[in-house]
């Protein structure tokens, strides 16, 4: 079979954090009756894929709680994967803790046999190696005293001696060599080198990066259960240390910000939500010499435009964001904060086995009908529209008892609207399934106003947007927000209500970019949203779909789109190297319920009416300004948000936006 000695196949490890600890029957029963048992999952490892060949030595690095030990325990067999599988072909000597299973009351002699048995060695084997172990541990004189009288260094020595006396095929070391004197450490290192050259496979966890580089020929970097990077030690360790430094400077900024908030100072503005609106406003307010504190409920800044780096790829965590605008000033404004690339959004649509270009243009039509002249296509579409409208008119008039030609065709639902705008073929293949998935209802039951117009292009132009400027910031969006917020005291993971409770008199004015109905405690009812669920997956291949955005217009495929994040930046990392892996996000439309992530405001009569009522309340609210998508219950593109924030800033700060 394969020559891999360890295969970790897409392993996830799940813990339950719900109810922190219900560990007795009494509480369990009470909570069960009151329906208070919750299951809150925590993934200690997320889809980790690792393949180790015989004789390799791997270092595992990452901050505390990143999942290093969890991974080792999974390989050892202590933890069973929740998803995925692990296969190990060889004898493991685990040194997760030296002398695990030592009994304090027993003597060293007895413990050697016990510990050997714990590691799965037979008594006969232990007898044969007994002298070697004692000699290596240098404990001849204390063999018959109980181990509770030993120092921790002595215990470590004994544990190491027992664990390494055999030549195991796989040696697992979890930060165990931090105890013991220098001399012993040196001998441990020598012993490990010996084993490595003897063909032992090593898995080594340590915070001591130089020792990782020295001992290992591969390094895996984990962060919060995710594999950030794997590869040769120099590269990965360098990237890791750089990140650490950044995290450290970030942490020190965080501390400064906290100190600022906790000082007696009163801020001019409290910005709630650090999305694009809040950040632009905060930045302008700083420029105008105001003091600003910004908070965000999430544990990062940036709102939905936040991008996180994984495997060198900027992952659009809350959905794809492609910057496009026709406003020169906006374009120049954003270019101050990051360098934008030449990305042009040209999505494609998959319908069963067919592939079409989007938006609807000559490429789409020629693939669909085999026609190449724009005139022929226009005629084809007109024909289909006329055919349909004719049919429908006859039907409508027959039921209304009127004569043909008396009244025009009035689409009664989305299906009728769409077909009358684009003809039956386009509707069936490219609109129907997609729209139904998006709204979770048949098109015939959806109101016509959702699609007001369908732009059809009779040129061979796949550029989705008509705007003059378009691109993606190289290195992701988060940097833009971070730069905008320089000089602003930021606190993430902080809810507005919580902030008010803790610092009731910290600010003069509030800029609220959260949901307006939430601000008023839903006293008039919930505003509704359409929401999207993302399933993000890391794939061990360089190219999954060959395009950043692929729409699935077929009703049978459950997701609406797949985003392949790397193609927003042409598959290159920040240094211009090709990225060997890829990350995709499947998007699913889900019915929105209170408490879910709100994405798109629903502009139907009920919700518009309800928002108007909230807007009245908002106007009366003194010293609070509402803004952004959620604050004003309106969908904005990024450039529109910036314009809105400018407008507000100019009005509020009595300044002019200058670049």
């Amino acid at each position, binding site marked *: 079979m394969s020559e891999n000695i360890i295969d970790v196949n897409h392993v996830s490890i799940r*813990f*339950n954090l719900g109810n922190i600890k219900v*560990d*007795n*029957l*009494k509480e*369990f029963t009470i909570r069960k009756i009151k329906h208070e048992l919750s299951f809150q999952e925590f993934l200690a490892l997320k889809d980790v894929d690792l393949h180790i060949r015989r004789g390799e030595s791997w270092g595992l690095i990452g901050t505390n709680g990143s999942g290093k030990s969890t991974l080792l*325990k999974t390989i*050892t*067999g*202590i*933890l*069973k994967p929740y998803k995925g599988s692990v296969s190990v072909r060889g004898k*493991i000597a*685990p040194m*997760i*803790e030296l002398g*695990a*299973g030592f*009994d304090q*009351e*027993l003597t060293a002699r*007895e413990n050697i*046999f*016990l510990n050997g*048995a*714990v*590691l*799965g*060695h*037979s*008594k006969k084997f232990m007898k044969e190696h007994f002298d070697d172990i004692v000699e290596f541990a240098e404990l001849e004189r204390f063999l018959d005293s109980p181990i509770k009288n030993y120092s921790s260094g002595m215990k470590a020595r004994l544990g190491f001696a027992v664990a390494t006396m055999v030549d195991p095929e796989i040696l697992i070391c979890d930060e165990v060599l931090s105890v013991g004197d220098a001399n012993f450490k040196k001998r441990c290192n020598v012993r490990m080198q010996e084993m490595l050259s003897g063909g032992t496979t090593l898995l080594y966890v340590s915070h001591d990066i130089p020792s990782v580089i020295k001992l290992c020929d591969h390094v895996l970097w984990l962060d919060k259960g995710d594999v950030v990077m794997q590869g040769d030690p120099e590269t990965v360790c360098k990237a890791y240390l750089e990140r650490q430094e950044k995290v450290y400077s970030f942490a020190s900024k965080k501390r400064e910000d906290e100190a600022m908030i906790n000082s007696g100072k009163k801020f001019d503005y409290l910005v709630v939500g650090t999305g694009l609106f809040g950040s632009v406003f905060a930045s302008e307010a700083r420029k105008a010499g105001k003091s600003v504190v910004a908070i965000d409920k999430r544990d990062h800044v940036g709102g939905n435009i936040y991008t996180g780096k994984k495997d060198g790829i900027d992952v659009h965590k809350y959905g794809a964001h492609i910057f496009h605008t026709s406003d020169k000033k906006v374009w120049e404004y954003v270019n101050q904060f990051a360098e934008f690339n030449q990305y042009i959004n040209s999505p494609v649509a998959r319908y069963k086995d067919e592939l079409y270009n989007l938006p609807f243009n000559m490429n789409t039509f020629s693939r669909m009908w085999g026609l190449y002249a724009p005139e022929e296509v226009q005629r084809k579409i007109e024909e289909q529209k006329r055919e349909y409208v004719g049919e429908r008119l006859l039907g409508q008039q027959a039921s209304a008892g009127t004569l043909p030609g008396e009244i025009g065709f009035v689409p009664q639902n989305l299906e009728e609207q769409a077909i009358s705008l684009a003809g039956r073929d386009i509707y069936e293949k490219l609109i129907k399934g997609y729209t139904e998935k998006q709204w979770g209802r048949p098109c015939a039951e959806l109101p016509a106003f959702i699609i007001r117009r369908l732009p059809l292009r009779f040129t061979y132009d796949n550029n989705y947007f008509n705007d003059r400027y378009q691109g993606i910031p190289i290195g992701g969006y988060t940097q833009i927000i971070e730069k905008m917020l320089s000089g602003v005291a930021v606190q993430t993971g902080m809810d507005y209500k919580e902030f008010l409770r803790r610092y009731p008199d910290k600010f003069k004015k509030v800029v609220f970019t959260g949901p307006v109905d939430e601000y008023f405690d839903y006293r008039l009812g919930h505003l509704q949203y359409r929401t999207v669920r993302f399933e993000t997956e890391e794939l061990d291949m360089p190219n999954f779909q060959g395009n950043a955005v692929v729409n699935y217009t077929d009703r049978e495929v459950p997701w609406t789109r797949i985003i392949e994040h790397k193609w927003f930046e042409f598959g290159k990392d920040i240094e211009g190297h090709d990225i060997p892996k890829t990350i995709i996000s499947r998007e699913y439309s889900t019915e929105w319920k209170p408490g879910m992530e709100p994405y798109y405001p629903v502009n139907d009569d009920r919700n518009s009416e309800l928002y108007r009522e909230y807007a009245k309340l908002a106007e009366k609210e003194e010293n609070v300004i509402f803004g952004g998508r959620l604050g004003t219950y309106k969908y904005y593109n990024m450039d529109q948000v910036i314009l809105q924030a400018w407008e507000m800033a100019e009005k509020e700060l009595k300044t002019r936006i200058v670049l």
Partner: protein
Amino acid sequence: MSSKWLYRIRTFRKYRDLLIELVKRDIKLKYRRSVLGYVWSVLNPLLIMVVMTIVFSSMFQKNIVNYPIYLLTGRVLFEFMKSATQDGLKSVIKNAPLLKKTYIPKYIFTLSKVTSCMVDTVLSLGAFFIVMIATRSAFHVTMFYLPVIILQTYIFSLGMAFFLAALEVFFRDIEYIYKAFVVAWTYITPIFYPLENLPHLLQVVVKVFNPMYCYIAAFRDITLAGNMPGPRIVIGGWMWAFGFLILGLYVFQKKKDAFILHV
């Protein structure tokens, strides 16, 4: 299926020495900790027997010929079962540090605890033989059947221990609930009183629903009466033993992978 069992047997053989080491550790530590060592484990039942004989023998004199032996036969087996299940119950959680750090088949801990209790029981049989001699009781040939009874009690206790140990991981108060249960069980078992003193209905209940009755009654048959136990007691004893072993192993096996998340 067969490869699965083959794998299990191989694993068991690999960890057989660990089982022996663990049992040895338990026994050694038990005797090492006290000054009197082994003597204590003989002396303890003797002292209790003396006290209980003084208190109860006059109460039940008419029905029981040799009260000290009657009492001891009951106590030896019941105490064995009691300590095996109560120690076994804690066997998994007590070894949590080890479970978190190295891979060991988890049943080894329960198995070793129950086994050390059995070894301890066999060793403390010394007290029983001393009393046999002191009361000038006859040694019947039927007493060679004793190992079978101990084996039955062992298997039964093992099943109970597996079941309880698995539950204890998830609910720590099982320990206390079980302790209370054992107290009730002690009184519903004819250890220091003759079964005939109970009302008829209760006698039937004890005979049918109390597994310990089978083992104690068998022990008394072979020592006091010199008879082989009747088929109902023998077959009943085996059925209880294997019934509980299967139940215990089933529950343990089903839950064992989740242990690590709760210990």
